[in-house]
């Protein structure tokens, strides 16, 4: 009886196999193709011929053979074109001394740095990360981002070429901290694309959110002492915990204030709270930890009004010092309004409104509408809700905002 190959196993091994191959032979771009073919071969052959004793070694062997074939045909082609074949010798790659065993984890980390290379656009970084580290096929990635497969194939091929042209080496980069920031940003973008999908009829595309969490877990396992990595994982878990309560039966958006908190995922909250409680005192404190701490305060509150708003205000104030982000300023204004009253919140909004980055964002106008409603100005609130509704492209959000406008009297 054929047993299907657990997808998790293959996807977990994918970056390790690719790392081993690139470390040994170089040729990141071709090796990546070879690994995808080896994964495909495993998915087809293992159920029929039985599982190998050492799946990772099997994959490395098959992928190496495939890589050799690919490089040979590439070399033959180059010879035909009368150019000198540019083999990259293993010595050309910076490798650790022979007496130090290579950790598979280091390889995965280096792969992440390559995929999030600064020469790539965010869209390319995301696509390449999902394929080379996440082990997803191009078809799956194309489907997740609602683009034709040919477009995604080209995006990934170009990304690999850019990494190659930029002369990236298979070693930990010297500007490691800066590059780690880029990796975390890409993982957070993947999560958000799934959580707050802006395209398509349904509000959430769960698979990408789960993939973001999986990648964050992977990096956390490799760098358990990095407090920002821990913070990012906690932030995602604490946000994702609210997923079941975030949309209604007809797919409509339900804001946090009105969500049924009994539907929040308690195991995710518990894990997120543990992670952030452990990370914060260790420091240094960064934006992901602060956002996770804010999410934790929300997740532990019995209701919107019972929330510890002064603490949230304080956390946003630290966050504002770290980053000049208008969305953070907007959330800060909401927290202040909840802690000190709508008038104070509206004053803060007045300072944000002139910021071009957010002036035409529906969220700014939705917040103003809400604060005007709280302050007893229904006419102003209705106008602001209606304006917010015209500024969003999402129909569920439009319906929510127009309903609020109609009910504000």
């Amino acid at each position: 009886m054929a047993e299907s190959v657990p997808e998790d196993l293959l996807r977990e091994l994918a970056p390790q196999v690719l790392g081993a191959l690139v470390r040994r032979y170089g040729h990141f771009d071709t090796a990546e193709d070879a690994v995808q073919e080896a994964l495909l071969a495993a998915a087809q052959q293992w159920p029929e011929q039985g599982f190998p004793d050492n799946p990772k070694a099997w994959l490395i062997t098959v992928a190496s053979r495939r890589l050799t074939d690919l490089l040979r045909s590439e070399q033959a082609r180059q010879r035909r074109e009368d150019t000198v074949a540019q083999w990259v010798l293993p010595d050309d790659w910076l490798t650790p001394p022979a007496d130090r065993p290579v950790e598979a984890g280091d390889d995965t980390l280096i792969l992440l740095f390559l995929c999030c290379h600064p020469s790539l656009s965010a869209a390319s970084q995301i696509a390449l990360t999902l394929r080379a580290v996440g082990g997803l096929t191009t078809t799956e990635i194309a489907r997740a981002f609602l683009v034709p497969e040919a477009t995604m194939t080209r995006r990934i091929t170009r990304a690999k070429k850019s990494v190659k042209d930029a002369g990236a080496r298979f070693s930990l980069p010297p500007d490691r901290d800066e590059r780690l920031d880029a990796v975390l940003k890409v993982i957070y973008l993947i999560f958000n694309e799934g959580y707050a999908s802006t395209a398509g009829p349904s509000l959430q595309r769960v698979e990408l959110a789960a993939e973001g969490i999986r990648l964050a877990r992977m990096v956390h396992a490799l760098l358990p002492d990095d407090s920002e990595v821990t913070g990012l994982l906690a932030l995602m878990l604490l946000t994702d915990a609210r997923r079941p309560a975030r949309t209604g039966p007809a797919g409509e958006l339900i804001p946090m204030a009105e969500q049924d908190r009994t539907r929040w995922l308690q195991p995710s909250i518990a894990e997120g709270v543990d992670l952030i409680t452990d990370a914060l005192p260790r420091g240094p404190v960064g934006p992901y930890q602060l956002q996770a701490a804010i999410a934790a305060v929300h997740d532990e509150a019995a209701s919107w009004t019972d929330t510890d708003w002064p603490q949230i205000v304080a956390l946003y104030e630290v966050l504002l010092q770290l980053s000049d982000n208008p969305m953070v300023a907007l959330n800060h204004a909401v927290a202040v309004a909840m802690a000190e009253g709508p008038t104070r919140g509206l004053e803060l909004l007045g300072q944000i409104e002139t910021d071009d980055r957010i002036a035409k964002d529906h969220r700014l106008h939705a917040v103003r509408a809400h604060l005007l409603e709280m302050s007893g100005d229904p006419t102003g609130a209705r106008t602001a809700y209606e304006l917010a509704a015209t500024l969003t492209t999402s129909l569920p959000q439009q319906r929510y905002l127009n309903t609020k406008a109609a009910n504000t009297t």
Partner: protein
Amino acid sequence: MKYMILTYASQQDYDGMGGKDTGKPAWTEQDFAAMGAFMEKFNSDLAESGELVETRGLAAPVLTRRLGSKEGASVVTDGPYAETQEVLAGYWVVECDSFDRATEIAARLGETPAPEHVRATAYADIRPIMESREDMVG
């Protein structure tokens, strides 16, 4: 052969779908949910039969930017359409055996659940797509 099926709506229609009372009554929550469920089924059936190439819905006309030129310089106009002007709202590209089959597919759109006043005036166009460079420049 590929065909494009096009549907049209005005800003007023979009507002109604977005839950806003304008000249016409707004869609109720049930109307909106039924339409969503129908479209999901319609699209998955087309994908299942292998005839769907691509489908997209366009955001409200008010969010349109028109790029034109005035005295040799580029000019951008925000929201160029009148409130009641019907403009492209969404499309499907299907690949099927005949113009009649494409028409049959589009006809199913006529069953889309929607408020009566919307159903009464809704229509779709079906247009053959030029397949190659030869179709365009000979």
